[in-house]
């Protein structure tokens, strides 16, 4: 008996420990990014850092073109992914007959599971030449190409989160609207969607977060030219994102060099961006849950 209490005690401790390990890991990630990235802030003058030329061989570490690249590609991806993702979510949750839903949901999940390097591979072989010939641009490796594929990769996130949100809207809401004479279409737009709006907002934010963090695909299809994108035409020229810069250059730098630290600095920025997006998304969800509890109690 005594023996088993001991075992129970140890197991309970271990379980508690693994629960708290999540905090440990986030802490460790931040710590090591800071340790390796902070020296860049000391070694690179701020004016250089916020200049428009990224050319590490000549000690030019201007991160603006990289931030610009990420912004352009992400914005482009959102232009595709948000309308398509939301429409698909609405279709699956509200319109599709059950058997279609059972087919569509796993299919969208498959898209979410496709390795990004494979989409990049197909991007190079199929999308790139297509973009070059149809848009008549000198190279198909453009921000637009990246945005197109990245949009596809953000869609599964948007669909599954938004569909969940629509699914949790109580059936009575819809029934009340229909009983008042609204068509199903009006019910979707004026009742269901507004009721699920915080979940839908979370879906969009998480989808955009996914697009910002995507690495391999963008590196393979956007051409990797660190030029500050200006104007709408930049969408159809090569760009280079923050993630692609790290992935492409980290393999070639000397550990401890300024270049090495600067890549970690970009990593810190990406970490902070994802932190902000996810905290915002989480707070929306928490707030919604609180409101639901208030209504129910």
């Amino acid at each position, binding site marked *: 008996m005594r023996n088993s209490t001991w075992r129970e005690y140890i197991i309970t401790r271990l379980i508690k420990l693994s629960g708290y390990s999540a905090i440990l890991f986030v802490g460790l990630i931040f710590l090591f990014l800071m340790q390796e990235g902070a020296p860049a802030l000391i070694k690179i003058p701020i004016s250089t850092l916020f200049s428009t030329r990224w050319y590490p061989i000549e000690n030019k570490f201007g991160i603006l073109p990289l931030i610009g690249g990420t912004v352009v590609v992400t914005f482009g991806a959102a232009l595709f992914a948000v309308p398509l993702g939301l429409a698909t979510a609405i279709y699956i949750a509200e319109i599709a007959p059950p058997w279609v839903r059972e087919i*569509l949901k796993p299919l969208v999940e498959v898209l979410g599971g496709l*390795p990004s390097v494979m989409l990049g591979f197909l991007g190079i072989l199929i999308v790139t030449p297509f973009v070059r010939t149809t848009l008549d641009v000198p190279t198909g490796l453009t921000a637009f190409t990246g945005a197109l594929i990245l949009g596809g990769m953000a869609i599964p996130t948007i669909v599954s989160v938004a569909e969940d949100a629509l699914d949790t809207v109580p059936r009575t809401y819809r029934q009340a609207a229909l009983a008042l004479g609204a068509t199903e279409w009006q019910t979707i737009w004026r009742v269901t969607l507004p009721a699920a709006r915080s979940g839908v907002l979370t879906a969009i934010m998480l989808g955009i977060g996914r697009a910002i963090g995507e690495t391999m695909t963008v590196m393979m299809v956007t051409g990797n030219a660190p030029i500050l994108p200006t104007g709408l035409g930049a969408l159809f020229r090569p760009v280079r994102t923050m993630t692609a810069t790290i992935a492409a250059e980290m393999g070639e730098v000397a550990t401890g060099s300024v270049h090495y630290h600067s890549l970690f600095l970009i990593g810190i920025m990406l970490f902070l961006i994802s932190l902000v997006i996810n905290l915002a998304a989480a707070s929306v969800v928490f707030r919604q849950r609180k409101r639901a509890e208030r209504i129910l109690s």
Partner: protein
Amino acid sequence: MKSVKSMVSRSKRQNFIQRLGFAGMTLAAMVTVTPIILIVILIFWQGAPAISWEFLSGFPREGMRAGGILPAIVGTFWLTLGTGVIAVPLGIGAAIYLAEYSPDSPWTRIIRIAIINLAGIPSVVYGLFGLGLFVLFMRFGTSILAGSLTLAIMTLPVIISTTEEALRAVPNSFRVVSVSLGGTQWQTIRRIVLPQALPGILTGVILGLERAAGETAPILFTVAAFFLPQLPSSVFDGTMALPYHLFVISTQVPGMPLRIQYGTAVVLLTFVLGMNIIATILRSRARARRQW
């Protein structure tokens, strides 16, 4: 007073709008889904002819432009296994804590926020972290150990959230009965809750490992080798891996035969899709069998 006629025409218009809207939504869903089917078909169509015993069991030759991809297959297998060995116990433990033990306290909320953040951190940042902590600080070098640890931490949130969901789906009455019969909390979890939740947990584990198997960015600086003429012999060896190999042969090697590129893609896709299908089947079977 509005005439009946105008009301009828109004409802006709609404009907028309609705039909138009539904058609638009259906179209959007098709636009989303069709490329997925096309991608899978295309890869299998183009890649299947490349598959031969020699391709699966041979080493790359002539600067990877001929021969097989055995080292990459073996490498991905070991990496996935290593990730599982580390992430599965830790992830299930964390999920048990959250679902069964954790009080509703600020600390629990911080754990949840930490998990949400882990899920959102870009994969390449995990690569940087793995490089900083495992490769350099702990001196594991670019090794299967460093790569597996990095992938494991990245996979953790998927395993935790799906396992917690599976545990919470087990009705509370199961626990109440077990405890009232004199079972301790751990006995209840081990004998009652975990077996009931097992299919859901397995689904989560497989989906997490599927993601790990297909990732490239986290292994770029922690384990992946451009080309290695031998198989890894210990966890401290670097290795080739399927996703990284596909990246290499589709961007870094000029004059690469398309056949080998598609062949590598089809092996990777089979690996990932196979896990996905197993997970989907497990989940639907568990749902069908569930009696509560």
